[in-house]
């Protein structure tokens, strides 16, 4: 494995610094803050970029950068991962700490959540102790108001000694004031004198003793008082960062070490006691300030949130509601996708006739005509007409759940199962990310601190079906289990997809358990999960974002891959070796294995050719079936079903194919991401092997059992 958590942190930071590529004129500002304070929303607002946001902690796992102009100055904004303190607890938090300490941003904007100001001020105070160039951005000010929380921003600014700006980033309120404040600090027009905490006598005395030996060593690059505090707490992680970024190895300063030992003996302090005292002092200070600047008219954990949580996480209804939610989403998708799919298919058909005429008019040779129309065009048409409608319905619905803040509730409901599988609680979150995109889920595993649990989460992420695989599941399920659908039958189709999802979650847990008992032995490490307040989603933005960011992204990726793949299939179907086509030979080669697991050679081949993008598996399959025999008109799902049946499909074939969709190798993007994240071929290979073997085994058992029992 050979990769420590530390080296990972440095690696990611290097990535950020490298990408930044700014001129000396540019003003670098960093956005820091607790998880889920709306940093990413603010970032998007400032930079005009569309970084994906979501109402759950840990959404930003790597730092994004954007640019904005204010008063003819160029500002480069770096959106840091959310962190609770400058004491990093995972790789992504380390990135935030390192950037604040060593990235020398001109201004640090600390984003705090107005609805939970007291807790958020903890990080703000820690940053104020370290730097002067800070602007506090009190975000979600509208939400706080709704919850009956009033914050006296001017008083807060007086107490903290730095500019404080109230914003509602979602609606763009307060952004100009924020930019002004950042500008003033960056240009040195405003000198801030941040509030520094005075600690208990013994801590202050200890700082006084330590400071000279630190200053001797590091020439005031970083506040020596702050370093003294960290030395008292025994923050060794920070010391190795010093060594890495500044080439100062504080651990070799004998004077410092001796002083530390002396002090700890004299005052009877340990690392933990120091840390306790320091935090206690900070929190007491915050309590004092809060009592002067915040007035609560209501309990911040609002009655409405409480009531919703009472229901969606209740013992009786929690899990059923979760299942019903998902099933309802699938049902809507299945129900809604039929008609647009048919319209698109006939539109493409119409277009094809005209394209053909055009090509024939220009006298295009027949082989080129074949590649272009029967290969490339038809595959593209299929990808779009089969995949676009379910995506355009499914993604906005999923994004809606994400925005509401429902995902952490899922993690809360399911956590016990993950604990029993000896996995990390946050794996429930990375699993949910996998429903969107497995590659994103794998990157998301950075929020997991323990190396062992992080690998488990990475290796099992592929078990949950991603955006690219859902449409295949939905199409097959509606074709074979619900066509000619009355309401009841499409419910059946939704139920089947739902069962598939449940199975994928069970498989995730099962393989996590196996991994933690074999290759990655260990016990679950500690974790805390924040359940953020529910947020009112912006329907318009959800639509736009899920359509453009997800649907079009997934679709365009599918199209890039589908066009060449369609050409390959057509060539294979039209190149003869002996009396049979190459396509036939290849599929016959795969056929024996495929038959064992309830598929056929063509299906298996489509899966293999679909390695770059799972979205194209079904279109490729249709292509290779139609390329075999006479071309059939594929006006709708019914025709497609007929094509499949003509090629020997039964409900068992459909079921085995669906199971294989759930359980097979990750797409190439995900594999590359795993390689990048683990930096190990061995784990990448394992990530390939585990779901593949699982898929082969499950399909084999199902297929053989059904045949043995003569159910078919």
């Amino acid at each position: 494995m050979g990769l420590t958590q530390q080296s990972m942190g440095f690696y990611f930071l290097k990535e950020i610094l490298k990408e930044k590529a700014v001129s000396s004129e540019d003003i670098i500002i960093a956005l820091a803050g607790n998880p889920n304070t709306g940093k990413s929303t603010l970032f998007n607002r400032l930079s005009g970029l569309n970084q994906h946001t979501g109402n759950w902690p840990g959404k930003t796992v790597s730092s994004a950068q954007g640019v904005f102009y204010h008063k003819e100055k160029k500002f480069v904004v770096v959106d840091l991962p959310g962190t609770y303190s400058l004491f990093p607890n995972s790789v992504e938090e380390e990135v935030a700490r390192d950037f604040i300490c060593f990235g020398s941003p001109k201004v640090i904007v600390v984003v705090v959540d107005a609805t939970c100001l007291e807790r958020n001020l903890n990080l703000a105070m820690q940053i104020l102790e370290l730097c002067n160039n800070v602007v506090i951005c009190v975000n979600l000010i509208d939400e706080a108001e709704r919850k009956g929380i009033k914050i006296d921003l001017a008083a807060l600014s007086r107490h903290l000694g730095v500019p404080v700006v109230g914003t509602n980033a979602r609606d763009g309120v307060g952004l100009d004031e924020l930019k002004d404040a950042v500008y003033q600090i960056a240009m040195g027009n405003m000198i801030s004198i941040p509030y520094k905490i005075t600690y208990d006598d013994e801590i202050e005395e200890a700082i006084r003793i330590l400071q000279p030996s630190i200053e001797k060593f590091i020439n005031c690059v970083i506040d020596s008082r702050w370093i003294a505090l960290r030395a008292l707490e025994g923050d060794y992680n920070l010391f190795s960062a010093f060594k890495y970024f500044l080439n100062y190895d504080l651990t070799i300063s004998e004077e410092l070490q001796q002083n530390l030992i002396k002090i700890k003996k004299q005052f009877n302090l340990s690392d933990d006691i120091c840390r306790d005292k320091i935090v206690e002092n900070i929190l007491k200070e915050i309590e004092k300030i809060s009592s002067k600047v915040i007035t609560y008219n209501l309990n911040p954990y609002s009655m409405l949130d409480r009531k919703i949580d009472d229901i969606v996480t209740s013992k009786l209804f929690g899990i059923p509601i979760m299942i019903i939610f998902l099933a309802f989403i699938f049902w809507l998708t299945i129900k809604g996708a039929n008609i647009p799919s048919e319209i698109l298919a006939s539109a493409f058909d119409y277009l094809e006739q005209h394209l053909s005429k055009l090509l024939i008019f220009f006298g295009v040779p027949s082989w080129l005509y074949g590649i272009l129309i029967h290969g490339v065009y038809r595959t593209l048409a299929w990808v779009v007409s089969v995949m676009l409608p379910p995506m355009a319905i499914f993604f906005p619905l999923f994004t809606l759940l994400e925005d509401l803040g429902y995902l952490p509730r899922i993690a809360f409901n399911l956590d016990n199962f993950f604990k029993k599988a000896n996995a990390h609680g946050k794996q429930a979150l990375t699993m949910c990310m996998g429903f969107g995109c497995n590659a994103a889920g794998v990157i998301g595993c950075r929020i997991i601190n323990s190396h062992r649990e992080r690998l488990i989460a990475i290796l099992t992420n592929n078990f949950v079906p991603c955006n690219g695989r859902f449409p295949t599941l939905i199409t097959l399920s509606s074709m074979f289990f619900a066509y000619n659908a009355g309401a009841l039958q499409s419910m059946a189709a939704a139920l089947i997809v739902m069962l598939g999802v449940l199975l994928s979650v069970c498989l995730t847990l099962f393989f996590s358990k196996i991994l933690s008992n074999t290759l990655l032995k260990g016990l679950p490490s500690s974790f805390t999960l924040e359940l953020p307040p529910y947020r009112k989603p912006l329907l318009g933005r959800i639509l736009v974002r899920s359509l453009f960011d997800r649907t079009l992204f997934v679709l365009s990726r599918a199209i890039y891959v589908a066009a060449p793949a369609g050409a390959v299939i057509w060539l294979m179907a039209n190149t003869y070796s002996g009396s049979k086509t190459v396509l036939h030979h290849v599929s016959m080669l795969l056929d024996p294995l495929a038959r064992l697991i309830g598929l056929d050679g063509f299906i298996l081949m489509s899966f293999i050719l679909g390695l770059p993008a799972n979205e194209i598996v079904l279109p490729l399959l249709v292509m290779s079936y139609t390329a075999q025999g006479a071309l059939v008109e594929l006006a709708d799902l019914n025709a497609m079903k007929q094509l499949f049946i003509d090629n020997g499909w039964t409900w068992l074939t459909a079921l085995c194919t669906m199971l294989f969709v759930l359980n097979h190798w990750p797409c190439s993007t995900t594999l590359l991401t795993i390689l990048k994240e683990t930096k190990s071929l061995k784990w990448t290979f394992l990530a390939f092997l585990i779901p593949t073997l699982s898929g082969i085994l499950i399909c084999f058992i199902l297929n053989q059992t059904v045949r043995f029992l003569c159910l078919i």
Partner: protein
Amino acid sequence: MAQTLPLHLLKPGSLARVKELKAKGNLRKRMLDLGLIKNTIVESLRRSPSGDPTAYQIRGAVIALRSEEASKIIVELVK
């Protein structure tokens, strides 16, 4: 003297005041980050459908802790 107990035994719906953190190292740091120091008021909100973890209200935020972690926080009941 009010009765002291580990946090995971606190019944949902009741309030308690933190008396002592038994956690060490990283977990202790994390708890301090969340604002769990002596005399912090914690409300036990509800258990997960599968019995664990439990959600607590700590300084205005809702945080779920597994029983292993919560058992390392000693609290006393608040009337």
